């Protein structure tokens, strides 16, 4: 009935404006909180939550205990609810809303579903009101009555939705539950009898969780790459710390240290009652060989988990004043600055300068890159370190232009890779335009203006022609068709790498750019 009519019946009626958005948000938060029972949770409609507790119930001592715990905790948060546990989603929905047990949780064991569903009204099948009314009009008031009808008649008369809901409730049709968030590969939960809020206690609990998770990962030979530590507060909110590592890690100290570094971003509120550590991306990780004294032979040690607890201290076997190894350093830097901030320079076979040396993320696994050869210990025993070979930059040399002024003859002014002129230490991306003046078409400029300063060129070398790589697809770069590169030196000695884009004598104007600066 409209509000005005209701108020006329009962003038003292308390009214509150409906806020569906806030209600939905609150339901979502509650569903996230229910994550403590199982990661497979999702809101259901506007007033329900569905949780998949297959395989989790034993952690609470059975489905009855789990349901009772849920009711008690919801009550503590000020939420009244009805809980039903059954072996299909449809049946649980029906029992939660339509069973006659009052406030007590309903647990229906497999095999009793059919008998339990039969006396419930047809609205318990999640049908829309029109279909339910149609069923009632023909006299099918109970679910059991509907079940007794031939299925194709029901489909013809009431649509396939009715038959589908019936099958889902009885378990003949599977109904998967899409969880809110990604389900973790491994999960460890720590519940506290009393809620804790002290940062020292949280840190201790973090360490304990990390060790337990690592114990599980060790048994399966896995390492974790992405971890989420969730703090379930007493008021129902969930705070999270998300962590990523550059390599799969199984080092409890390292993981705990990474989490502890971010603990100050977590607000425990009035207290945290559960902490759940979930590993999302796991990769296989073999065991490490340890030396006799407990330190690893590998110069980048991973403490092998079978060491007794007291030995597993950070820095064992490391130098005085140092903590951890390079992989741990990259993790620490990556977690604060973002893993995209760590880069390596890799050479590519290309004679176009901006493609010849590319920056790649450093988090790609390639252990030989961090080591230059046998470790100091092995080297002292006489194992020779291999000579450091620079990446092979055998790109095709640009074709030399006609005239020669300052040829690369005589002494080798070139880099270690034979045959190519030296490259600048700093390369601008994109190249900066300059205004240049030159005499003859193939000459380097004798004067140019760059960054609003005028430069007079005293010496120049070049040109070196670098043409586009026709074998690359068209959209793979911003290369002008032909570039003639010159090394120029001005009166003060600044050495720059200029190029002219475009061929002289063509119809379009020629553009000059500064591409880099030499040391």
């Amino acid at each position, binding site marked *: 009935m409209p509000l005005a009519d209701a108020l006329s019946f009962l003038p003292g009626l308390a009214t509150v404006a409906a806020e569906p958005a806030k209600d939905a948000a609150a339901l979502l938060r509650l569903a996230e909180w229910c994550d403590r029972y199982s990661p497979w949770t999702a809101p259901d409609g506007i007033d329900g939550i569905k949780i998949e507790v297959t395989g989790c119930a034993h952690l609470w001592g059975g489905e009855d205990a789990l349901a009772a715990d849920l009711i008690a905790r919801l009550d503590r948060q000020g939420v009244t609810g009805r809980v039903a546990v059954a072996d299909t989603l449809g049946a649980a929905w029906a029992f939660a809303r339509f069973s006659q047990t009052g406030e007590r949780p309903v647990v229906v064991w497999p095999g009793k579903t059919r008998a339990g569903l039969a006396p419930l009204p047809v609205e318990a099948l999640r049908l829309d009101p029109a279909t339910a009314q149609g069923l009632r009009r023909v006299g099918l008031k109970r679910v059991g009555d509907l079940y007794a009808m031939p299925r194709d008649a029901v489909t013809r008369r009431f649509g396939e939705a009715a038959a589908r809901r019936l099958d889902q409730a009885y378990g003949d049709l599977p109904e998967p539950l899409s969880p809110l968030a990604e389900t973790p590969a491994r999960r460890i939960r720590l519940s506290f009898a009393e809620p804790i809020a002290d940062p020292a206690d949280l840190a201790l609990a973090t360490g304990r969780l990390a060790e337990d998770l690592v114990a599980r990962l060790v048994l399966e030979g896995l390492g974790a790459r992405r971890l989420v530590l969730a703090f379930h507060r007493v008021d129902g909110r969930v705070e999270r710390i998300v962590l990523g590592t550059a390599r799969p890690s199984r080092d409890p100290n390292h993981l705990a240290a990474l989490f502890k570094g971010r603990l100050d971003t977590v607000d425990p509120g009035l207290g945290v009652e559960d902490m759940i550590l979930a590993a999302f991306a796991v990769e296989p990780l073999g065991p490490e060989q340890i030396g006799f004294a407990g330190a690893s032979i590998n110069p980048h040690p991973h403490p092998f988990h079978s060491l007794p607890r007291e030995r597993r201290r950070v820095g064992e076997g490391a130098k005085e004043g140092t903590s951890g190894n390079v992989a741990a350093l990259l993790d620490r830097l990556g977690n604060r600055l973002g893993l995209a901030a760590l880069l390596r320079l890799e050479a590519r076979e290309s004679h176009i300068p901006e493609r010849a040396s590319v920056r790649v993320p450093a988090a790609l696994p390639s252990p030989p890159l961090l080591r*230059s050869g046998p470790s100091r210990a092995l080297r002292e025993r006489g194992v020779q370190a291999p000579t450091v070979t620079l990446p092979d930059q055998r790109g095709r040399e640009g074709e030399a232009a006609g005239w020669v002024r300052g040829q690369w003859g005589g002494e080798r002014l070139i880099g270690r890779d034979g045959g190519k002129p030296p490259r600048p230490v700093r390369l601008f991306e994109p190249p900066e335009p300059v205004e240049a003046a030159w005499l003859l078409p193939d000459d380097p400029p004798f004067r140019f203006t760059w960054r609003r300063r005028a430069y007079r060129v005293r*010496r120049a070398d070049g040109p070196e022609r670098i043409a586009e790589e026709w074998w690359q697809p068209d959209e793979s770069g911003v290369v002008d068709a032909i570039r003639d590169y010159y090394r120029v030196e001005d009166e003060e000695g600044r050495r720059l790498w200029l190029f002219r884009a475009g061929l002289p004598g063509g119809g379009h104007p020629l553009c000059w750019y500064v591409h880099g600066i030499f040391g």
Partner: protein
Amino acid sequence: MIGPSSKMPRDPLSVLPMLRDQVRRLERPAATAHGVLPFGAAAIDRALPGGGLARGALHEVLGAGGDGEDGALAAAFVAGILARLVTAVDGIVLWCLARPDLHGAGLAACGLDPARLVLVRTARDSELLWAMEEGLRTSGVAAVVGEVGAFPAVASRRLQLAAERSGVTAFVLRRWCNGGQAARERNLPNAAATRWQIAALPSRPVTRFREGGDSRAGSGIGHPCWRVELLRCRGGEPAGWDVEVREGKMVDATDIVSLAEALADRPMAPGGGDTSPPEAIRRVG
């Protein structure tokens, strides 16, 4: 029994270096505790305490003039030093920067293998200094390089202490985006062990050869020439040198900086090669 003290040598003049060394060790016990990296050029090594660049310490490198914005000379100088350092020490080189314009081929030309580098790209100075300090505290890192503009003295002290404790060498390249800020901050003191300033000099003309065999003095660019100034050195005195950077024909890369023979008298004669002896290096300052 008190006898004549025979430990003291008779000659008082030879006592002085011994005493000086003792005093230096007492004054700064950790100064060269991790060893030194010699430049391979005798004149520079003589000016540095211990005969080379101190390892396990913080060194600051500035580029003169316009190089304060781009940092190419400073980067080439540091790359040359690192090229020798990484042959002696295991581990990666952590290079922290805000503008990722380092070119791998250019570093290779200076002798540094770019595969040993891990670049850390940061947005803020505070994050950059934090990353440098983290790198200094890690085993498996051979050296840490950072490109900062504003370099407060407190931060420099922290980095110096971290470097001393762990033995990892730290380099700070000063690089500003703003000329006014550069001028203001360039001369502020900090706790670096040495402070270098590199300026570019015009290179010497190099004799070129054409196919016909006749030599002709071309006007091409020769080997890069720098003016290297040691502005401040703990335990040493400021000095400056004009150097020519030349990769020796030997595979041994320790000789990356060799002192030019004929820079003593300038301007440069257009005829090529002088015959003045190699010791005629003008020491300035």
